[in-house]
Each structure stands twice: as C-alpha cells, then as structure tokens.
C-alpha cells in the first residue's frame, strides 16, 4: 500500500477463539497499584 502501513493485524479478534483461560497475571499486581493497564500484560497460554 502506498498510503497506509499496517502495524498490527486483527490480533484482538483472533484472540477470542483461544482466550479466557484466566491464568494470566492480575493487572494491578504488576507495577502500578493505582492506574490499571491491561494491554501490557502477558498471555500465559502461549496462544
């Protein structure tokens, strides 16, 4: 494409099929304790 560079595909939609195991870290536990962010958490099931 000339005008657009796709940095990231439909990863969120694709994750719906394999997600929900709940083994991941609780988001507030990592380093914040006040301002949650979930997008920097790791997935634990190696999807």
């Amino acid at each position: 494409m000339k005008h657009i560079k796709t940095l990231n595909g439909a990863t969120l939609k694709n994750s719906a099929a394999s997600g929900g195991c709940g083994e991941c870290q609780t988001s507030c536990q990592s380093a914040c304790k006040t301002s949650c962010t979930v997008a920097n958490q790791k997935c634990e099931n190696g999807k």
Partner: protein
Amino acid sequence: MVHTFEALGVRIAVDVNSGAVHILDELTFHLLRQVTPPMGEHCSKAVLRALPQYAPAALEESWQELRSLEKQGLLFETDDYIDKEQAASMQQSARIKALCLHVSHDCNLRCRYCFASTGDFGTGRRMTMDFETAKRAIDFVIERSGGRRNIEVDFFGGEPLMAMDTVKRTVEYARSREQPCGKNFRFTITTNGLLLTDENIDYINREMSNAVLSLDGRPEVNDDLRRTVTGKGCYDAIVPKFQKLVAGRGDKDYYLRGTFTRLHPDFAADVMHIASLGFRHVSVEPVVGKQDDPYALRPEDAQAIMAEYESLAQQLRDRPDVNFFHFNVDLAQGPCVIKRLRGCGAGCEYVAVTPEGEIYPCHQFVGNPDYRLGSLYEQTFDRALSSRFAALNIDSREDCKNCWARFYCSGGCSASNLTVNGTIEKPYALGCALEQKRLECAIALKAIEAGA
C-alpha cells in the same frame, strides 16, 4: 469504531474492535476522518469537496486502500464476535487467583500522599501480620483458586520489610503447598527500601518474581514527599540499596515505582532521573486523591500532564533500554479479548487481606467498612459484594462502551472511581484522559520502532 490520532509526529488509526493498528500518511489521516462506514465503492463527491487541498485521484487511491482494509476486517470491524453474555458470566464465576497480603500495617516512612494513612489505613492501629493469619490467607487462595494453577501474592503494606519473618514463613509454607495442590506461586514485594540489607536483598532476589521499589524520582521531589518519621528525606538511604538489589536481580522482574502529584508535575524529569541511576524498568504514576488534597491532580491539570507524557515519549524514543511501564503495550501478543473485557479483577479475582485477616476487594479499599468483603477468621465472604465487582466490565460501565481505549485499559480502577466520584461504577474522567494519552504515546512509540 476507529480512533485516529497524531502523536510524536506519527498519524495513526486504531481499529478498536479488531485490534488492528495502521500508520497513515497525511492525506489518508484526513480522509479517514471523513469516512462513515460502510464504505462506498468510490470516494464520494462530498468527501472530495471536504478535502480540496488533495488531488481527487490521490484521494480515490487512498480510499481504495482503506476499503481493502475494511474488507479484510481491519477497519470498522464490529465487536459482534465477542459473546458478551458468556464473558460476563465467566467473570461472575471467576476464581480468586491473586492476593495483596498486607503483612504490615505499619511503615517507617510518612509519605505526604499516602493512601494508607502512612501505614495503618486509618485504623489507628499499627501492626504486622502474624504467620497464622498469613497461613490462613494462603489456604484461602488455594481453595478459592479452583483449577487455576498460577497464584500471585504481593507482600504489601505499610512496609512489608517490617514483617520479614512473616514474609519468609509465608513463602516457605506456600511453596510446601505447591506440589500437593497443583499450584504455582509467584511472589512480589513492594518496598520503600529503608530496611533492605544484604541478607534480605539476596532473599528477595531468590524468592520474589517481581520487586516493586518505591522512588519518586529526583532527590528534591522524592524527599519533599517521602520522608522518614523524623522528617528527613529517604533518597540517599534507599537509592544505593535499590541499585544493589537490581544488580543482583538477573532476569527477574522489577520496577522502580514512583508517584507524581500536582506539587511536582514535571514527572518526565523524574522518569529520566530514575533511568539515569541505571534502572531499566520504571513506573511513575499519577496520584489519586480527593479534590481538596493539595497534592491531588485536578481536571484543569489535564492538558499540562498530557503534554508531559508526550515530552516523556519524545525523550524515550531514542532510549530503547528504558522500559516505562505505561508505554509498554504489546500490540501483537498481549492478553486475549476476554481478559480485556474484565478489568483488574478486584473483589472477584483479586483481594487484599489485612494483618487481622479481614478481606477487601483490593489494597485501596482496606479500612473502608462499606467494602469489607469478609474475614479469614470468621470464614465469611460477601458474595453479593464480590458479584457487584464481578459485574464491572467495559460493556457494563457506561462511559467505557464508547471509549476507543477500552480494550487497552479494561475499565480503569474502581478504587479511584470511588475516591473521586463516590461510586465504583463511574470512571474517573481525568484518569481516563491520562490513560488515553499514555496509550496514544505507547502506540506511537511502537509505530516509530517499526519505522514510521
């Protein structure tokens, strides 16, 4: 839903529901803002008229590229693929898998902004947790975690190093239960550093999968807010200890964790100062306080804070060695969409336990009688209150439904909402604005890393 923004000189489109992120040229950036889905076969005359600065042929070319993305499900995707009812029910049946273990309701610092009333959480009783209570907490989380294997325990306070004997005995006990119960414990400790010694540094580096080390940044900023009981700043005492701890940490996680307030709003300098001390992982966060607290951030501070985030991002674009917690967004391999619907899990997946064995939805609610979930000694657990927390997700929180950042933030912090708005359900607007800005900076940094 598509969110377009410009940060660090890069123009970006986030397709909210698919998770796709696109870097746009200037023409396409302006064109996309004129588009209402579903896209027509060709760029309409109305759109051409709205953008007279661009050649019609170029606009048509860009239109076809956008259309191609739409056809591939990478633009204007809906969220129909998410079974929201199922996701909501999963949260209601969620198992507790994380503990914030308040091993000490006492502290050797008197930080001016402390949400825990300098350690005792407003109770007037300074105390540490005994091993019997900690043991009950470990048994509680093992039982409540059901089939979940990974369990997190954060040793918190007050200052947890004031209860090091309880910490050690708790770790030993939890480890002894791992194999028989099919669990894997991960321990974190959050410390102000004053009581670090060679011995407990070795212990923390051996046993704790994460260490959160409290430092607000430049000496004058840290010492203005983080003082000992005699009123002396703690910077000189703690920094060499933190450096020693991190030098022996190997690949294990750690964060230097600071708080910024309206008293020292130029926090980018604090992040860069912490990095200059040799610390790679840095998290400096906005304080949350009641509007009449002199240190609390106010709505009128929003523009200046957002500019400060952008300034920080500019400084970090050439510093890949520094990992700033809130600019660390994994676009490709992050958590699944189910996790992103659910938020922090306070009150249903995550609880705090006090030295007296009382249970609260998270550390920020401790001492608030309206949010007491139960007691380890009474063997009580308020399922109705837990269920109220479990019902919170980005679909049930009205303000989150139409927010572009919902899958990155997952609904924000219930405790902050309560502090500012008086209810856990209503998001705290300034917190939302800052989260959105941090995410824009984070995504822009990713784009630059990819060669934008």
